[in-house]
C-alpha cells in the first residue's frame, strides 16, 4: 500500500476475538477458570428454555461440539466439560476496556458486532512504519495479554469485519480477497445463504457479477446493501466509542515509565500545553481526562470536571491530584506506563479576565467554584448540591437538588404566602412524609395532639388547613409511597406546647376519598 493512497482512502482494522468470553474468564477470573480442571470449556446461555452452547474453546471445537448445541447433547458427547454461564454484560465491559486500550492506535476506535473492534487507522500507519506493522503491534499486545485475536485490514469496515471472520483463500490483493469470501460473509439470514448456495453462488465475487436488481428482487434490498458495503462501494463512517475531543495532548515513551509520581509530572506538562491551546481558542475546559496507558494494555482513565471553565495548569493539576488521592486503589504503574494522553472533552468559551481592574470580585466567586470542584471530585459530584426551584405545587416536587458542579446558581425563589407572614413552608422537608398518630376532635378537624418518634406533642397553636390537591392530570403525583393514586392533602402548621413548629397533613378527604385519613408529618419549621 503506497503512502499517497493511504492519505485519501479510509483504512479500517478489524479485530475479532473468537473466544472472548473464554479468554475473559481465563484472564479476569482465574479462580473460576482453574477450579474445574482443564477439560474442554464451553460457555452456555439459556436460549428459549434450553441451555445451549454459546462459545467453545479450541478443545471443545476439536471434540466435535458446535455452537448452538444443547448442553445435554454436548455432555452426552463429552462428559468432561467445564461449563460456564454466559455473562454478556461482563463481556461487553471487557470489550469496552479493550476498545479503550486500542485508543492508542487511533482516536477513532469503535465496538464492532460479534465480539469485535473496528479501528479507523486511516493515516495512522506511518507512526508504526506501515499499517501491517500497526496491526501486528496491536495483535501482539492483545495476545501478550492472553486474548486470542484475528485481524484484517480493508478499505471499508464491513470488508474488514468479514475478512477477519471468514477464512479466505490467499488472494493477490484486497479486492480479490473480498471477492473470494463465502456468501455467508454477507451475514444475511441463514435461509438466504443456503438459497444462494443452492443457486450456485458461493462467493461474494459470484454475487457481484450478477445484476443487483435480480438480487434485490429475490433477497431484498439489504442483500444488495450488504454486498455494496462489503465491496466498499458505499461509505458508512464509524461511530467511535468516544467522540474525538477538541484538544488532545499525548506523550509516548520509548521506555515504560515505572513511577506514577513522574507520570503525574508529565501530565502537568501536558496540562500546561493544553492550557495554551485553550487560551488560543479563547476557551476554558469544563472536563479533563487523563489516560494512563500501561504497557500491558490496560488504561486508567482519570476524569475531572469543573463548574467554571479553567485553563490554568496548576488548577487543573490540583483537581487531578484530588481525584488521584481519592482513588480507592492507587494508580498502579505495573510494568510501567508507555503512553499518557490528556484530552479536553468539553470546553466552553472563556474570556480573559482582568482581575486587578475589576476589583477582584470575579476572583471571589471563582474561589467558591474552585472549592465546589475540589469537594465534588473528592466526595463525588452528586454530593455537593444546589437547590433549584421547580414549578409544582406538590411540596416535595417544588425543588430539585442538583450537582453544584454543573448547575449555576438559579434565580426565582418566590416565598409562599403574603409579605410579613411567618414562614408558610418548613425548613426541613421529609421525603417521603413520615406517618404519625394524630388525635383530632372530628375526623376532618384540626389535629389536637400527635405522636411522632415516640414523643407526644400537644398542639397549642395551629393554622390551616391549607389544601393541596393532587394534580388530577397525573393521578400518581402526590401519592404517598406505596399508594396508587394521589389524594388531597390538608396541611396544618402546628406548634406544640414547647414551641416546636411542624408541618403536618391529613392525607385524603374524610368521607369523599377515604374513611380513615392518615396523618403525616412533612416538615420541620425553624
Amino acid at each position, binding site marked *: 500500500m503506497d503512502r499517497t493512497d493511504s492519505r485519501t482512502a479510509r483504512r479500517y482494522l478489524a479485530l475479532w476475538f473468537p473466544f472472548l468470553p473464554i479468554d475473559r474468564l481465563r484472564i479476569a477470573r482465574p479462580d473460576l477458570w482453574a477450579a474445574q480442571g482443564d477439560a474442554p470449556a464451553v460457555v452456555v446461555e439459556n436460549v428459549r428454555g434450553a441451555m445451549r452452547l454459546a462459545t467453545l474453546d479450541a478443545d471443545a471445537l476439536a471434540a466435535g461440539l458446535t455452537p448452538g448445541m444443547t448442553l445435554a447433547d454436548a455432555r452426552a458427547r463429552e462428559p468432561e466439560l467445564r461449563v460456564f454461564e454466559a455473562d454478556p454484560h461482563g463481556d461487553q465491559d471487557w470489550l469496552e476496556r479493550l476498545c479503550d486500550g486500542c485508543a492508542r492506535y487511533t482516536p477513532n476506535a469503535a465496538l464492532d458486532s460479534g465480539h469485535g473492534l473496528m479501528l479507523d487507522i486511516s493515516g495512522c500507519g506511518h507512526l508504526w512504519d506501515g499499517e501491517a506493522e500497526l496491526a501486528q503491534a496491536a495483535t501482539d499486545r492483545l495476545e501478550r495479554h492472553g486474548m486470542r485475536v484475528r485481524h484484517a485490514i480493508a478499505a471499508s469496515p464491513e470488508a474488514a469485519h468479514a475478512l477477519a471472520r471468514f477464512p479466505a483463500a490467499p488472494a493477490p490483493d484486497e479486492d480479490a480477497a473480498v471477492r473470494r469470501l463465502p456468501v455467508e460473509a454477507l451475514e444475511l439470514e441463514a435461509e438466504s445463504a443456503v438459497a444462494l448456495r443452492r443457486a450456485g453462488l458461493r462467493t461474494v465475487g459470484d454475487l457481484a457479477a450478477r445484476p443487483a436488481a435480480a438480487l434485490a428482487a429475490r433477497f431484498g434490498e439489504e442483500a444488495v446493501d450488504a454486498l455494496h458495503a462489503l465491496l466498499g462501494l458505499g461509505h458508512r463512517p464509524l461511530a467511535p466509542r468516544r467522540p474525538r475531543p477538541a484538544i488532545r495532548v499525548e506523550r509516548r515513551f520509548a521506555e515504560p515509565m515505572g513511577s506514577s509520581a513522574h507520570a503525574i509530572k508529565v501530565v502537568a506538562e501536558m496540562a500546561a500545553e493544553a492550557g495554551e491551546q485553550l487560551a488560543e481558542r479563547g476557551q476554558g475546559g469544563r472536563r479533563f481526562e487523563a489516560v494512563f496507558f500501561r504497557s500491558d494494555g490496560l488504561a486508567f482513565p482519570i476524569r475531572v470536571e469543573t463548574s467554571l471553565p479553567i485553563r490554568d495548569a496548576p488548577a487543573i493539576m490540583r483537581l487531578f491530584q484530588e481525584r488521584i488521592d481519592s482513588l480507592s486503589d492507587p494508580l498502579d504503574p505495573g510494568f510501567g506506563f508507555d503512553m499518557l494522553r490528556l484530552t479536553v472533552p468539553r470546553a466552553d468559551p472563556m474570556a480573559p479576565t482582568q482581575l486587578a481592574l475589576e476589583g477582584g470580585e470575579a476572583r471571589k466567586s471563582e474561589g467558591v467554584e474552585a472549592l465546589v470542584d475540589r469537594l465534588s471530585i473528592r466526595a463525588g459530584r452528586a454530593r455537593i448540591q444546589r*437547590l433549584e426551584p421547580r414549578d409544582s405545587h406538590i411540596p416535595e416536587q417544588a425543588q430539585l437538588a442538583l450537582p453544584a458542579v454543573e448547575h449555576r446558581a438559579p434565580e426565582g425563589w418566590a416565598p409562599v404566602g403574603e409579605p410579613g407572614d411567618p414562614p408558610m413552608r418548613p425548613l426541613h422537608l421529609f421525603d417521603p412524609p413520615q406517618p404519625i398518630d394524630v388525635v383530632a376532635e372530628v375526623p376532618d378537624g384540626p389535629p389536637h395532639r400527635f405522636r411522632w418518634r415516640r414523643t407526644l406533642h400537644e398542639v397549642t397553636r395551629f393554622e390551616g388547613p391549607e389544601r393541596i390537591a393532587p394534580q388530577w392530570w397525573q393521578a400518581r403525583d402526590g401519592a404517598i409511597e406505596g399508594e396508587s393514586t394521589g389524594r388531597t392533602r390538608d396541611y396544618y402548621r402546628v406548634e406544640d*406546647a414547647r414551641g416546636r413548629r411542624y408541618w403536618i397533613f391529613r392525607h385524603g378527604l374524610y368521607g369523599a376519598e377515604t374513611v380513615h385519613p392518615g396523618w403525616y408529618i412533612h416538615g420541620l419549621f425553624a
Partner: protein
Amino acid sequence: MSESIKSLAALKRHIAALDRTPAPTVGCARLATGHAGLDAALDGGLLRGRVHELFGAAEEEGAAAGLALILARLAADDAPLLWLRTTASAKVGGSPYGPGLAALGLDPARLLIGLMADDAMLLRAAVEGLRCPALGALLIELRGRAPLLDLTASRRLALAAEQSGVTAFLLRVGGDPVPSAAETRWQVAAAPSDPLPGNAPGHSAFALSLLRRRAGPDGLAWRLIWDGEKGAFGDGRHECHEHGQDGQQDGAPLSGALVSLPADRSAADRAA
C-alpha cells in the same frame, strides 16, 4: 535537678513560641445579630472568623438548624454559604427545603449543600471549606456524639477559620458538649412563638442560652424572634402588640380555628 528545671523552662518557652499568639479579639470584625441584648452581652456581636458551637436536642433540630442557618446567613452577607451534613442526618432530619429557606429570608440560590458519606469525610471537607476565603460562612452539622470531633479536630477547624476569616457554625444535634476550641457555645431550643390572630403560630422564635464564651460572662439566656422579611432579630413583645392593633381584634377567629367544611359538601347537597 536545676538542669531539668532549666530544660523544662526552655521547653515551656519553646512551646509558647510554637503556640500562635491568640489573635487580638478587640480589632476583630464582629457580626451584629441585631438583637440589642444579645449584641450588648457579646460586646457587639459574634466574632467573625471563629467557630461557634450550637447545641440542640434531637427534638429541637428544626429550631437549632434554623438559628444556625440564620446566623450563618448573617455572617455570609451576600457570599455563598456551605452547609455540610451527612447523608445519615439527611435521612433522619429531612432535607433542606428551598421554599422554606426563602420564607425565612435566606436565599436558597446562595446555599450550597454538601452531603458527606460520614463524619470523617465531613470534617475533612469542613477544613477544606474553611480554607477558602471566598466562602461566606460554613455550617457544619453533626448528629449524635460525633466522637471524631475531638479537641484536635475542633482546633484544626478554629485555626483554618482564623486564617481565612470564614465564620464557622458547628451545629450539634443531639450531642453533648465536650471540650473544644470554639469561641462560643450555645444551647438552642424552640420557643413558643407570639401567636398571630386566630392562635396561629407566628414568626420563628428561639430560646438561646450562652453556655460558654472564651472571654466574657456566660450563662445568659435570650428569646429571639426572627423576622425573615426585615432580616433581623427582635424580642417580639412589642411587635406582638402592634399586630394586635392591626385593625383586627385580638383573637378574632380566622378560618383556621373553625372546623373545616366537609369537602364533598354532601350535607349541603342533601339539604338542597
